[in-house]
């Protein structure tokens, strides 16, 4: 139903592109000015950029799944944020059950300290004290979320395959509410910290850091990296590994090819004999698995868990998917990077409680003026 409206000879899209470019140039110039004038320490800028990168990783993990369901099942899945929440609760429950044996009662561990009987510090819930439990929890987060997503697909979405985007969207809102409050019914609505404070190593010289470090030192950057937060490092490593894994899966397996074919042209894919239901199942497995892991890793990094955090994250995930162009998982990752950097680097100019407003504004602008995404409609290439 989209139509291109033209303002004289320049299309609105081009105009938006120029304005956005001009805005970025102005901000970049101001950044340089601040650095030169000394009002902005390089360390601060580095910290904000790094935080933006970390945020972009978990947003990106979740965005891959949302983008895939959007292009293959053809609806905006509003329950994706709650799959993130479900993964976090599921995975951490398993981590607590395994990691806290003997340290706290089973009931308290099963409900993630809902009654205050299983404090994270007392159980040693950090990556150094109980690495195995946390690793099993990570895998469990993926498996549990996959299970939930497949069950929901069987119960709800499978019955409305032909129902069009909007009825599916509404149904997904219903799923989101039901799932979120089922979690709340079991775990209570209280927000709580469930991870022990993160262990650190360091400080490190830049060249000691594997990939990023050697790149930086290669271009002559020589300042020291402050103590490395091991939970953040776990997040970065797991997320990067998964992203590379998904890339390989989509590029080099038959399944990946059928998925890309289906999101490119559904009817053509059907004609060539691709089994739709199998592809849909694979979509849910990959998408939900990544969403669950994202939720688990967010909690590992931020320690706080609440039933709402996935829902509040959803709009940022949507923003990433839209920026990258719906259907393209590389676009989604690029979009996640932009969103992650936007919500962190924008703090230089705006107060911290308005950073998401900036990200949403960017999303709305892109939807209006460049609905194919900033990368211009590359479909799962």
């Amino acid at each position, binding site marked *: *139903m989209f139509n291109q*409206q033209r303002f004289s000879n320049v299309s609105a899209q081009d105009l938006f592109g120029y304005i956005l470019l001009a805005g970025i140039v102005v901000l970049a110039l101001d950044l340089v000015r601040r650095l030169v004038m000394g009002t902005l320490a390089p360390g601060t800028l580095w910290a904000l950029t790094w935080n933006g990168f970390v945020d972009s990783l978990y947003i990106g993990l979740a965005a891959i799944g949302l983008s895939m369901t959007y292009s293959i099942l053809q609806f905006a899945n509003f329950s994706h944020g709650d799959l993130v929440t479900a993964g976090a609760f599921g995975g951490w429950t398993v981590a607590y059950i395994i990691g806290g044996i003997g340290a706290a009662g089973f009931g308290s561990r099963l*409900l993630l300290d809902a009654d205050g009987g299983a404090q994270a510090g007392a159980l040693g819930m950090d990556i150094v004290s109980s690495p195995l439990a946390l690793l099993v929890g990570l895998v469990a987060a993926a498996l549990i979320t996959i299970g939930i997503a497949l069950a929901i697909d069987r119960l709800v979405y499978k019955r409305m395959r032909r*129902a069009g985007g909007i009825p599916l*969207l509404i149904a997904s809102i*219903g799923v989101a509410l039901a799932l979120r409050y089922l979690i709340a019914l079991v775990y209570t609505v209280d927000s709580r910290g469930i991870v022990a404070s993160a262990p650190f190593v360091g400080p490190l010289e830049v060249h000691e850091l594997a990939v990023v470090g050697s790149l930086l030192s290669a271009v002559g950057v020589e300042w020291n990296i402050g103590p490395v937060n091991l939970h953040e490092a776990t997040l970065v490593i797991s997320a990067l590994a998964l992203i590379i894994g998904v890339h390989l899966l989509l590029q080099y397996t038959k399944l990946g090819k059928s998925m890309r074919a289906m999101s490119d042209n559904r009817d053509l894919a059907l004609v060539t004999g691709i089994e739709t239901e199998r592809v849909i199942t694979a979509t849910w497995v990959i998408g939900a698995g990544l969403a669950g892991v994202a939720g688990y890793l967010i909690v590992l990094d931020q320690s706080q868990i609440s039933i709402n955090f996935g829902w509040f994250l959803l709009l940022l995930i949507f923003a990433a998917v839209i920026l990258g162009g719906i259907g393209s998982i590389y676009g989604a990752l690029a979009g996640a990077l932009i969103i992650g950097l936007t919500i962190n680097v924008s703090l230089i100019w705006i*107060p911290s409680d308005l950073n998401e407003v900036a990200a949403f504004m960017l999303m709305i602008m892109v939807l209006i*003026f460049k609905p194919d995404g900033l990368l211009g409609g590359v479909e799962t290439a």
Partner: protein
Amino acid sequence: MSDESTREEGGAQPEEQSENPTPDETAIRWQSDVKFIAKLVAVTYVGFAILGLVTGVSTNEIAGFLATVTFYAAVFALLALALNLHWGYTGLFNIGVVGFMAIGVYTFAILTASPEASPAGLGLPMVVGVIGGTLAAALAGAVIALPALRVRADYFAIITLGFSEIVRLSITSGSLRQVEVNDRVYGTGGGSGIRYDPVDGVVTWLLELPGFEQGGEALYQVAALVNVTSSVVDRFLYAVILMIFIVLFYLLLTRIARSPFGRVLKAIREDEIAARSLGKRTQVTKIKVFMVGTALMGLGGILWLGSRSLVSPDGLMPVITFYIFVALIIGGSGSNTGSVVGAFVFAAFLWEGPRFIRTIARTNLDYRPTGTIYDAFVELAALDPMPLIGYLIGSLDELRWILLGTVLVVLMIKRPKGLLGERKEIAAATDLSHRPRGETDE
């Protein structure tokens, strides 16, 4: 239950149901609709009252419950009607309803709050605040509509949701919390919100008018006979005022729907390109109808949230939009009567019904509140179901949400058109899709 009798007087005309009403039939249908709603309301109220009396709930609690149901049914009906204009008639999938409500009620609060309060308001009369809030919401609608109406339906949904979150986050933000102008501190008050005189104060004002004075006293005395307090009576009276607004909204919408403008709306919903190729200026029409809808949402927001003496961002969560969607979907989008019926069913059974069950349980069951669901299941294994029942009653809010989500899903699977969805007004003069049945005679 003072309002039942007033609602009954609507229509005792012989009813006639047909698939496609001519304008004459519509008048008859309108009366039968009022009769249907009155019947539904009466049956529900009597049902709840009997249930309450049998289970030993006090009359004041029952009356208070029914007043709350009436209030919520009324505000949901107002907002569902406004949303019906967007979605049901024009096919605009707006899931940022709460953002427009927020703009309405915050404008109202800033205009009417006392200049001495903190944050200060302008201290203007309530009527100015209501009109100002409504206009501000219409203006916000224009700001969103001008660029956003060109995009696809699902993109439009995300834009409106993003807009409502931008409004909420901006209101919460510290930078708009306090704005100093001429030694007075204005602003949104951040997380703690703005205090003002609530709109339901109009009931007290009305009862102090010369003509109404005795009437009010008499009402209070009658209520006191059955142990119902005057505050409950006031809440009923406010709900009656809301019903006047419902009738006004309803008349406005049916007026719009039957005008040439309304036919363009329905044409846009069904095939925008076809409508444009017939020379209709669909963009202008969409912007206009979007503004009318958001103005009504702003007004609905004022009448609902403005009836508390404090507005804060906590009351403006995005889920409120989905209450209204559920109400509209239950009734069937596209039908104004459906919107009202859906809002009532939603308010009575999904929204307030579970609370009534809790009230009954509290008066009758001797359940112990337990710590966690795990403890409750451990007790259940020892063949004591009371702790689990206690836990579930304690978590009634969560259960209500689960119910809400489930109803939404089941409706979308089983009855995507809602209870009265087949009443959707089609764009064409005759229903072309049902030709082969031979039922249609025009």
